């Protein structure tokens, strides 16, 4: 595993913050101790952190369990950065087959605000999590890959069973507003077909695999604006077809006739922009991924709007 300097610096800062009441040393010294272990002795980062904590915080010495020091207890939907140490009350929604011996358990945990992938390492020696079990997980750390967050249980994590049954939210959101922009990379696009890449090609090339033939797809990246907030939305092939009435083969035919895939985007812009939509979907990074999109085409109820207006 390659650990770059920034990671070590970040870890050192985290450790310093977390142990500010017991550590007598500064961030630079923590970083240097970590670096010696990781780079000089090829110790895995997790073990290096443990070693540094042990050396500098006497009360941890004989203890294999972690601290009572409380993290912020937050909801899954609030997780917005990696490397956050948090406590979560969750229900185990799904358990998957671990893909490696180093993983003891992996699956999906959920709360009222949504679901998140969790990983529990074999070497952490933690109790087994049961499917549909409800737990308080103390001291887990967040991670991020490709805009999607996950949590990692570690040696210092405490697992406490809960009596309550946590309700699982689907994390779905519904918004309404005018479609004020459709961005490039919309309409008829090509995706990389190497392995299961699916990256969108730019000028016939994939950022990972170079020039490839690719496979056509339809999608829209748009901006819904309600005058107060803006939302970036992504519509897949089905939703795009539902709104435009243009399916993938129509789009390919249009592009072939014009010898330009851009005609599809132009046509869609002219059909869709400036009208009001209701979009339902789930948040993914800064995007709302639409499950459903609907043109708001019913006449408005003027009487009730007048009543509302007079009450402001």
């Amino acid at each position, binding site marked *: 595993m390659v650990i770059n300097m920034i990671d070590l610096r970040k870890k050192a800062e985290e450790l310093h913050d977390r142990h500010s009441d017991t550590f007598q040393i500064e961030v630079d010294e923590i970083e240097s101790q970590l670096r010696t272990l990781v780079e000089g002795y090829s110790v895995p980062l997790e073990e290096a952190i443990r070693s540094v904590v042990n050396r500098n915080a006497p009360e941890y010495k004989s203890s294999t369990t972690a601290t009572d020091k409380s993290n912020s207890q937050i909801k899954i939907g609030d997780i917005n950065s990696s490397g956050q140490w948090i406590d979560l009350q969750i229900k185990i929604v799904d358990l998957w087959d671990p893909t490696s011996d180093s993983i003891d358990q992996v699956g999906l945990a959920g709360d009222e605000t949504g679901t998140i992938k969790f990983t529990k390492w074999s070497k952490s020696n933690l109790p087994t999590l049961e499917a549909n079990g409800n737990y308080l997980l103390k001291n887990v750390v967040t991670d991020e890959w490709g805009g999607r967050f996950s949590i990692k249980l570690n040696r210092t994590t405490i697992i406490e069973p809960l009596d309550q049954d946590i309700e699982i939210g689907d994390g779905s959101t519904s918004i309404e507003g*005018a479609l*004020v*922009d459709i961005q490039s990379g919309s309409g008829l696009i090509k995706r990389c077909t190497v392995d299961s890449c699916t990256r969108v090609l730019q000028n016939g090339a994939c950022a990972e695999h170079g020039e490839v033939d690719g496979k056509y797809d339809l999608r829209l990246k748009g*901006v819904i*604006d*309600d*005058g*107060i*907030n*803006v939302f*970036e939305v992504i519509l897949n092939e089905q939703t795009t077809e539902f709104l435009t009435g243009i399916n993938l083969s129509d789009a390919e035919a249009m592009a072939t006739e014009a010898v330009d895939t851009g005609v599809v985007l*132009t046509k869609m*812009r*002219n059909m*869709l*922009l*400036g*009208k*009001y939509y209701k979009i339902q979907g789930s948040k993914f990074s800064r995007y709302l991924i639409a499950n459903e999109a609907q043109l*708001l*085409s*019913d*006449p*408005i109820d*003027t*009487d009730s*709007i*007048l009543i*509302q*207006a*007079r009450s*402001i």
Partner: protein
Amino acid sequence: MSVSISREVARRVFASEFNIATHTFKESDDERAPNYILLPTGIHANRVFIVGTLTQLDNIGNDSEWWHGRISDPTGIFHIYSGQYQPNSTSVLRKLDPPAYVAVTGKPNIYSRDDEGLSISIRPESVTEVDSLTRDRWVAETAIQTLERISSFKENPTQYVEDAKKHYGEDPTIHHDTALLALESLMEPL
């Protein structure tokens, strides 16, 4: 400070309020910082979204296309100007025949007239033809949001409100009355 540049919201404003905005400002000295206009109801706008009736459209350019459009809402007239640097909206305008309901997303643009006065227009990012239901929805939405701005103008004055009082006067009642009239116009029989 966040490094990502977040997209500016498109304000909903009636022509009668938009057209008297004359004050522009930036919130930082950075050359690329967005330009804002200050609206009389005490909010800043870098972008607007309007829907109305395109009543007149002329290509007033000499060598290259330069379209001027008049767009009517229940309170007044918006002016839009679109040329070669607005290819999306120019290509749409080229094919439009007034009268037509249009939706415009664009940037406010304040310029000095020959007589030294100031005029405000919209430089469109997009223009599309829409239907009367979309227009009605916009009128209702714009009326509600205008009334809400006036409510916080009185009850919860921000720095923008203080600046608006300085530049446009203390009393936003006219915009309140106009917004209600605009809403009532939706109820008149066709």
